[in-house]
Structures are given as C-alpha cells and as structure tokens.
C-alpha cells in the first residue's frame, strides 16, 4: 500500500462520520446518500495532493464535502430530484438499521428534514455549527465574513426552531 492509499484510508476513518452527517443534511434517501458519500471521498482522493496541513483537516474535508454536495444536488438538472426527497424517511435506510435503533431518534429525523428544506447557504452554516465549528472556520469554508456568519446563524436558529416546531406539529 503506498503513502497516498495509507493517507486516504486514515482520512476516511477519521472523517467518515462527519461526511455522512453532511450527506444527511443534503440528501435523505439512502441510495442518494451513499452516492454522495462516495462522490465526496472520490473528490478527497483526487485532491489528496493538495492536502498538506493536518491542523486544517476539518476545514479541508468540510470544503470538499459541502462543495460536492452542492454540485451533486444543484448543479445538474437531472439531479434535482435527489435533494427533494425530503419526505423519504431517513429511518427506513436498511444499511443504517443497526445504527438507527439507538442513534436516530425522532428529533434527529425532524432536524434533518428541516435542515434539508433550508436554502443552500443556511444549510451549510447550520450543518457546520452542529458539527461544532466556530464562526471563523465557517466563514473560511463558506466564503462570507465572520460577522455575516454570526448574523445569519441567529436568523437561521430562529427559522429552524419555528420550522422544527411546525414539523413536530405536523407529525
């Protein structure tokens, strides 16, 4: 196994859960989620040569993940349906049966359904906040100012709260 393969496997092990969560924020059907997951790691492999600074691994992975997700969902006409499958139940994924029994609770499902309905920038900001990234890192990944991230985050928080409550009531 060469250095590139070792590095890739290590990055995969360390980041597969992060990437999976980003996938869940953008697409919800298991088939599309798996496709997107694979597409993100394909781009990780292709860009491995540009990965130098290990301290910035999170930013690096998130940038690739979010840009790939946008590309997957929005930039191709025939892929539009991929991101509109928000009604499909994340809990119905056979591959995740084992995990979901304990992890995917109702609230998580509602949260992903709600996040999935947000516009692209809001979706990215909220996903990254939930991942625990600070505003400076989010600004770096999205390309907007830190102040703007802060303002938008407060707006999204309110919006998300309202949307989640509506969703809960619907259920």
């Amino acid at each position, binding site marked *: 196994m060469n250095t590139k393969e070792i590095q890739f496997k290590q990055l995969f092990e360390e980041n597969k859960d992060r990437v999976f969560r980003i996938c869940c924020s953008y697409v919800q059907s298991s088939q599309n989620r798996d496709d997107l997951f694979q597409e993100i790691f394909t781009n990780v492999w292709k*860009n491995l040569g540009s990965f130098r600074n290990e301290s910035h691994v999170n930013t690096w992975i998130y940038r690739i993940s979010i840009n790939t997700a946008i590309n997957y969902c929005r*930039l191709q006409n025939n892929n539009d349906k991929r991101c509109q499958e928000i009604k499909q139940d994340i809990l119905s994924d056979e591959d995740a049966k084992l995990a979901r029994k304990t992890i995917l609770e109702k609230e998580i499902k509602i949260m992903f359904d709600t996040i999935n309905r947000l516009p692209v*920038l809001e979706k990215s900001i909220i996903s990254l906040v939930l*991942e625990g990234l600070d505003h400076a890192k989010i600004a770096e*990944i999205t390309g907007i100012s830190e102040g703007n991230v802060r303002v938008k985050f407060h707006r999204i928080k309110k919006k998300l709260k309202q949307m989640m409550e509506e969703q809960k009531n619907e259920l």
Partner: protein
Amino acid sequence: MNFEALSKKYKELKSPTKNTDGFLGNEEQNTSFLNILQTQEADAKRKYKRMYILYAIGAVGYLGIFIINTDPDLTIRNRIAGTCFIIAFVILSVLSRKRFSEIKRSSFLDSQKQFLQNARKSYLFWNKQQIWLVPVLLFVNAGATFSVSNHFGNLNILTGVFLFQAAFWCLLGIGFYMGKREWTKKKEAILKKIEAMLLEFEQ
C-alpha cells in the same frame, strides 16, 4: 431549542460504511473503492497524455506538409492556408491546455462562494475567455478560403470568395443557433439556480 444538545445528538450519527472497501467490493476482487479511484485517475492521465501527443504530431505534421515541404505543386495559397490552420490549431491547443489545468486545479477546495462563482462562469453561454475563439474562427476562415480558392474553376475569384464566405458564415450561424438552443435546454436553468444561490451570499 438547545443547540448544544442538538449538536451533541447530531454528532452521535455515525456512518454505516465501515471502510474504504465497503463501497463497491473488496480488494480480493480488485474492485475496491481505492482500486476504482486509481483506475479512473490513471485513465484520465492517459487520456490527456494521448491528447497532447496527438496535438504535437498534428502541429508538426501540418508544418511539414504545408510550410516546409518543397513540392513545387504546393501553391502559395496552400502554404498560406496551412499557416492559418496551424495558428488556429496552436491557439486551440493553448486554450485546451489552460482549460485542462483549470479543471485539474479542482475548485472543490475553494470556499463555497468561490466554488459557486466558478460554477457560474462555466455555465455562462459566453464568457471573456471565449473571445479567443474569434481569432481561431478568423484563421480557420482565412485558411479555408485560401484552400478552397484553388478549386473555384471558372468562377471569378471575388464571386468565389463571396459564395464561400456566405456558406461559411451560414453554417457558423446554424452552429451558433444549435449551440444556443442546447445551452438553453441543458444549462440555462442550472445557471439561474447558481445565480439564485449566489444571491444568498450577497444578502
């Protein structure tokens, strides 16, 4: 809504994919994810290498046949036509090379805003870089005119050139119209979506 609690719950979500072999097969079958990636990469490299070799052979070949060739049957018109084609060919090669390095320098590492701005550029029907296609077209036109002028026969040279120019620009117009129609069908909607997304970043 407690964001910290929500974030904690969110982070509990784990990927069902255990390892890199889990994507498409296993290493024994030689169809693991890594193997597929490596094959794709090698294929792409081979494809571009082949393309450059073809360009080089084409340029040198044209140079030899139309410019350096001492054959007395080769008229001055043929030589001028060959020169025009070579210039157009060189410009196209440089443009292709530039485009290739742009693709190679993957924009997936850019910020989200920059990524969308780049995507917007690539989905425009016309962008500044394409201005280089104008001299290419003019050289091809000039080359083709000189080349065809050997076969005008009884036609007056001016009439011949006029007829050829009319046919050339008509065909180009049809091509442009078809290209525009194809772009409207396939790309315009995506461009509008990208522009709507970019608007979010400006607000």
